[in-house]
C-alpha cells in the first residue's frame, strides 16, 4: 500500500498533481463562495425583489426592498385586511451575481456609452494602460540605472539613498494638487503620480537586489583581468538582471494601485472614471466587470512577462512565480533532465 503523504508539510514542494489542484482551487473556491451567496436563496439575501406590490402603497413592482421593512409593511397590511405584497429573496444591488457580471463583461465592450461624449469601455481601459505605461516607463528609465549604480557603488548609495528613503514615505497622492498646478489637468499629472509612487521604491528595491550580486563572481572576473567598468557591465548587470526583472514585475503591480488614485486627479479619466460613472448609474455589474478587467490585465501581463523572462534569460533555471511557470516547466522538464543525465554520464566516464 502506498504511503499516505500529508498535504500540509513545512518546506516541502508538493507533488505536481497536487500543485495543479491547489492552483485550480485558489480560483475556484472564491468563485464558489460568490456563487453560493448569490444563488442559494437562504444564504444572506437580505432584500426582497417585489413581484407583486399588493395593496402596499409605497412599494412598486421590481423594487428592491429591505427584508425587515417588507415584513413590517406586510404585517401592517395583514392587520388592516389588505392584500400583502409578495417578493423573492434578493441580494443588495451592490452585489451582482456572477452571471450578471459575466454578462456585463461581454456586453461592456459592445454597449454604447449613455452619453455620446463619454468613452467606451475599451477606450477607458486603453487610456489607463497608456497612462500606466508612460508613468512606469519614465520611472524605470531613470530608476533602474540609478538603482543599479547605487547597488554597485557605495558612494552613489550614500549620496542618493538617504533622500530617497525619506521621500518614499511621502504618499504619492499627496502630490496630486501640486501635480495639477504644475502639469495641468489632463494626463501629465496622472503620469507624475505614478512616477512618484513607483520611482523611489524602485531605486531602493533595485539597489538592494544589485547588492546581492555574488562577490565571488566579481573576484573571479577580477582575476580574469576585468576592469571596473567591465565588472559593472559584464558581471554586476548580467548577474542581477533576472532578479531585477522579477522586481520590475512586482513594481508594475504597485503602479496599478497608484493608477486608481492618479486617475481621480484633475479631469477624471480612464477605467477609474468608467467605474465611478457606472457606480453613479448603480450598474454594479459593470463596476465589478471593470474591476475584474483590471485584475485580468494585471494577471495576464504578469504571466506574459514571466514567460518572456524565461525566453530572455535561459540560464535562470528556476522560473519563479505563477502557475504558468509550472506549465512551462512540464514541457521543458524533459529536455533538461536529458541534459543533466548526459552530464552525469560524462563525469563518470574518463575524458
Amino acid at each position: 500500500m502506498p504511503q499516505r503523504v500529508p498535504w500540509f508539510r513545512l518546506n516541502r514542494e508538493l507533488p505536481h498533481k497536487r500543485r495543479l489542484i491547489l492552483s485550480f482551487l485558489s480560483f475556484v473556491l472564491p468563485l464558489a463562495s460568490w456563487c453560493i451567496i448569490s444563488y442559494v436563496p437562504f444564504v444572506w439575501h437580505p432584500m426582497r425583489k417585489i413581484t407583486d406590490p399588493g395593496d402596499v402603497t409605497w412599494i412598486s413592482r421590481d423594487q428592491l426592498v429591505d427584508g425587515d421593512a417588507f415584513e413590517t409593511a406586510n404585517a401592517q397590511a395583514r392587520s388592516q385586511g389588505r392584500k400583502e405584497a409578495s417578493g423573492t429573496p434578493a441580494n443588495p444591488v451592490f452585489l451582482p451575481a456572477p452571471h450578471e457580471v459575466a454578462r456585463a463583461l461581454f456586453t461592456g465592450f459592445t454597449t454604447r456609452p449613455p452619453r455620446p461624449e463619454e468613452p467606451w469601455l475599451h477606450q477607458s481601459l486603453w487610456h489607463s494602460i497608456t497612462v500606466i505605461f508612460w508613468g512606469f516607463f519614465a520611472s524605470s528609465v531613470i530608476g533602474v540605472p540609478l538603482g543599479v549604480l547605487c547597488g554597485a557603488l557605495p558612494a552613489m548609495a550614500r549620496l542618493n539613498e538617504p533622500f530617497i528613503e525619506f521621500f518614499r514615505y511621502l504618499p504619492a497622492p499627496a502630490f496630486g494638487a501640486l501635480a495639477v498646478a504644475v502639469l495641468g489637468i489632463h494626463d501629465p499629472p496622472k503620469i507624475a503620480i505614478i512616477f512618484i509612487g513607483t520611482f523611489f521604491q524602485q531605486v531602493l528595491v533595485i539597489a538592494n537586489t544589485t547588492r546581492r550580486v555574488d562577490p565571488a563572481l566579481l573576484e573571479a572576473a577580477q582575476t580574469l583581468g576585468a576592469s571596473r567598468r567591465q565588472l559593472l557591465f559584464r558581471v554586476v548587470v548580467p548577474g542581477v538582471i533576472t532578479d531585477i526583472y522579477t522586481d520590475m514585475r512586482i513594481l508594475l503591480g504597485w503602479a496599478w494601485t497608484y493608477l486608481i488614485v492618479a486617475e481621480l486627479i484633475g479631469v477624471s479619466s480612464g477605467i477609474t472614471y468608467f467605474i465611478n460613472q457606472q457606480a453613479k448609474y448603480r450598474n454594479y455589474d459593470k463596476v465589478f466587470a471593470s474591476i475584474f478587467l483590471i485584475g485580468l490585465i494585471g494577471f495576464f501581463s504578469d504571466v506574459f512577462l514571466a514567460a518572456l523572462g524565461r525566453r530572455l534569460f535561459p540560464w535562470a533555471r528556476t522560473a519563479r512565480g505563477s502557475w504558468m511557470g509550472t506549465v512551462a516547466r512540464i514541457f521543458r522538464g524533459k529536455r533538461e533532465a536529458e541534459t543533466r543525465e548526459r552530464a552525469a554520464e560524462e563525469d563518470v566516464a574518463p575524458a
Partner: protein
Amino acid sequence: MMGAIELPSHTEQPPEVRERFRRLKARPVILEVKKLVKAFETPHGTLCALDGVSLEAHRREFLCVIGPSGCGKSTLARILAGLEDSTSGEVLLDGAPIRGPGPDRGMVFQAYTLFPWLTVLRNVMFGLEVTEACSRDQAEREARQWIELVGLKRFTDSYPHQLSGGMKQRVAIARALANRPRILLMDEPFGALDAQTRSQMQAYLLQIWKAVDVTIVFITHDLEEAVYLADRILVLDAHPGRIRELVEVPVPRPRRPEHFVSPSFLATRKHLEELIHPGSYDHNELPMIRMTQVGDDVE
C-alpha cells in the same frame, strides 16, 4: 597498522626524482614572495594570519600549500591573486611587484564561480574578451581548444547549471588558463567535490598541467592530495601563519593512483601528518562524561 610497514625517510629521493628537482631548480624563478605579513585587526587584538612567509616558485613547478585550518593558506592565495593587500612584504611575479588582480595570475576558487548567464564557451572566452588580448574569432577558437583540453567539447554551449560540480571546476580551470597566466592559483578547488570526483579531478589536473606551461600554486587541506599533485609542499603553521617546512615530494612522475600506496608516498604523508598534527593522537580523546545509563556489557 602503519607502523608495521618499514617506511623509508621522506627525504630519500630516487635518482630520477633527484634529477627532476635539479632541473626544476635550474629553471627561472617565476614567483617570489618576500617576508609576507598579513595582520587582521579583530576586537580581541591583532591576528597574524601570515607572519614573514617567503617562498620561491620555479617555472612549471607544482607547489602545494597545506596547513591546519586558520593558518592563512587561503589568505596567501588571495594576496598572490591581488584580491587582498598584504600588511607588509612583497610579491614579485617575473621580478616585478604585483599590483591588484590581473590576468597574469589565474585563479580557481572552491566555490563554483562560473558566470551563470554565459555558456561554457562564453565563460572560457571571458578573460580573452575583457583583456582584448586577441580578436573575437581568435578568442573563440582558443576557447574551443581549451574546452577540448578539459574534455568538455560536448558541453560547449551548455549553461553552468546544466553541469556537475566536477565539470564546472574543469570549465573554471579552462577559463583561468585561457588567459595564459604565468601562475595558476587554486584555492581548495576540489574541496566541494565528492571523493570519487575529486580523485578524478586530480588526475585531470595533472594531465592538463602536463600540456600547459604554467606554474601552479595549489592550496589544500588534504594531505594525500598534496603529495599526489605537488613537486614541493609548503607546510604552514597556524597562529601565527609561518612556514613550518618546505617538503620535496620524492614520488616520481608521472604520478598514478597506485602511487598512493607506494612507500615514498606513505612516508611523505606520514611526515606531513606529524608536522601538522604533532602528537595529535594523545589529545584527541574527548573528556566524555556518561550521559546515559549504559550497562558495562554494551561495550
